[in-house]
């Protein structure tokens, strides 16, 4: 600030009680002029100069956002984690901006008015599948949400991404509920649900179980939605949902990668979380319910096969196995990307059997 400007201000009538030291000696970096790029004015654009210095550890547990000036009397909230590795994902900024750009409305962006009348068994099966999906989708909002208060303002982009995921999952709960209620059948049989994901005690545990495994498997399934969608309505619904899930999985992969790069000593610990999710502890795998057995898999098999006759079901279960195989192989690929390629030898046997040979 030009000293003469400050002097002028201090001389003004009424300025006797003004301090103005925040102008005179600003404690935060000034002089930034960031212009919008091709994608508008993004978080990456403003993460520049000292505002882009994301510390590996921080004592900022006061809710102060990165780069703003600290107060000497700032109140501490020790539940905020002091380390970047606790929650960081290199893709958080990009994925958040993408999420903001790609929001869709279940009310208006699905062509509900084009909903055809289906064979009753097929409609029943779709309603059952959507009952399952509407049940479990928002757990993927509750789960990351519980860690949001722990994210220091130094890593606020993580918090913003989590908010976008919560918005996505709300839309998924909503769209699958609507689908079940859209064509004369309604909601059907609820299952035990996905509450077990709430037991995660740590952000990395949460990411490995929810993003890497849970959402990864769902994403693989949605991306094959053309196989079991019964109409343009359904295809669009699964396509849009898959798009959202891809962001969640990408966030998880990049967080896990960051942890593996910076805290490689946590590798064995993470394997234990994956052991649990793969059903290796004796408690049923959360993923088994989707494609390995039970009411939802029967519903999927009916949709995939196109009916309930023996021939239809044979075809349906064959395709279901193909979906399962794809899920497992895409999961393995994610593990390789994050640095957990040795999971191949440790995977649950029933899943391991579905693995393609490793790429050389």
């Amino acid at each position: 600030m030009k000293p003469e400007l400050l002097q002028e201000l201090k001389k003004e009538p009424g300025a006797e009680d003004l301090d103005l030291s925040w102008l005179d000696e600003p404690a935060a970096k000034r002089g930034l002029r960031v212009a919008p790029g091709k994608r508008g004015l993004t978080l990456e654009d403003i993460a520049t100069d000292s505002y882009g210095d994301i510390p590996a550890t921080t004592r900022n547990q006061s809710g102060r956002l990165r780069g703003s000036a600290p107060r000497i009397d700032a109140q501490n909230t020790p539940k905020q984690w002091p380390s970047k590795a606790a929650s960081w994902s290199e893709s958080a900024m990009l994925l958040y901006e993408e999420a903001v750009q790609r929001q869709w409305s279940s009310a208006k962006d699905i062509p509900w008015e084009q909903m055809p009348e289906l064979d009753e068994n097929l409609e029943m099966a779709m309603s059952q599948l959507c009952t399952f999906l509407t049940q479990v989708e928002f757990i993927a909002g509750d789960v990351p949400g519980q860690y949001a208060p722990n994210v220091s303002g130094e890593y606020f982009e993580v918090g913003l991404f989590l908010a976008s995921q919560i918005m996505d999952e709300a839309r998924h709960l909503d769209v699958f509920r609507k689908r079940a209620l859209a064509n004369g059948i309604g909601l059907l049989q609820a299952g035990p649900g996905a509450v077990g994901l709430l037991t995660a005690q740590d952000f990395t545990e949460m990411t490995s179980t929810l993003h890497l495994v849970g959402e990864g498997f769902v994403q693989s399934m949605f991306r094959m939605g053309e196989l079991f969608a019964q109409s343009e309505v359904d295809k669009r619904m699964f396509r849009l949902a898959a798009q959202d899930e891809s962001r969640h999985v990408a966030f998880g992969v990049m967080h896990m990668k960051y942890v593996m790069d910076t805290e490689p000593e946590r590798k064995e610990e993470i394997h234990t979380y994956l052991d649990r999710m793969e059903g290796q502890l004796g408690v049923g795998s959360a993923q088994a319910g989707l494609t390995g057995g039970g009411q939802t898999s029967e519903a999927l098999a009916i949709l995939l096969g196109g009916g309930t006759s023996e021939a239809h079901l044979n075809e349906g279960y064959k395709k279901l196995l193909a979906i399962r195989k794809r899920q497992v192989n895409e999961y393995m690929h994610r593990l390789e990307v994050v640095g957990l390629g040795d999971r191949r030898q440790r995977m649950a046997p029933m899943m391991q059997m579905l693995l393609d040979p490793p790429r050389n």
Partner: protein
Amino acid sequence: MAESETTTPEQTSNGEQPQAQPAPQPFPFQIPPLDMSWAKVPTERPPRPKVGEDGFTLKMADAGGYAWAPDHWPYQNDTPRGSWPAQDMGLPAPYTIYDKSEVWADNCADLYEQAIKEQWKPATQISWGTIEPLAEHVEASLDQIFTNISEQAYNSNQVLMGWLKEISYGYHEVKLYLATQVFDHARHVEAFRKRALSNGGGLGYQAPGFFNRAVYASFKFTELVVYVNIIRSSFLLGLCEWGDKLGRSQADRQLFENLAHDLARHIAYGIEHLKYYLNANPQHRSHVKTWLDRGEVMYAADLRRDKPLREAFILALGDTVQEGKAKLAELRQHQLKRYLMTLEAATVYNRGDNLVNALKTIIEQP
């Protein structure tokens, strides 16, 4: 393929005979007999919706029995309302809120759809190019105000996200609405931070944090709503309504306008929830009074101790210090009026006569 068979791969590129690999084991899966017991559950068959120009809304979907949200939700997992509950419920969840009056507002479903319709994109839907260089002290003052707005939004955002797992699944409209509020707050954090960093300035000082702490420390969900959706949102909305006096560019005015639209929804939820809560629990009116007292004390503490923010308002609102001070006093009165109107709408009457002294003082002598 039998276990003992092997396959013989082709020679490798260096001419060596590779070892025969055991054939892949067939996946042991037997197709179960058709069951379809899930199709025979006696859930309600809804009418096929007549989709109009608003599309297939949540309210339309939740027709008949699906619309009924009971006063107490009996299921301890994520069973969707209207579905047939499983005999084996699995793990009981850590939800703590099973009573409708703790979270409900009649306008949730409508606000949810409205929020989606009105979602704006800070990166691309603000006219960033209209921001012109300003006098150094004016830019710095605006940046201090924007820093404060961004921080308040982060606090609301973080804490609200943390509460979602407390709310059981009988009130999905509430969870869906809250998801939109959380996403709104995220965009406010982002948008006002971008503005502070785009015109030769930078971020200002953090807030004293008394009110932030009260938000963190909320014991009850309605308490949180009182702090975030009633007190904070009302005062912020009052500020946005002065956006044309504060803003120096089309971008600034757009930011305040968009924030105002979002806050209007947050306040609408706050009002309807508080009304519902008080109607269902008239004996808890004293709790609401306690929360308002506490919230006002904390809000006043921040206003009293935040010298940079106070001075920033003075410099941003007026061409002279005296004019700025007069305008700040006017702004505070306007914000107070907005707050009291919100409370009246929520059936909390005559709060103006019962404001905590600390808030009354700082409003009268800002």
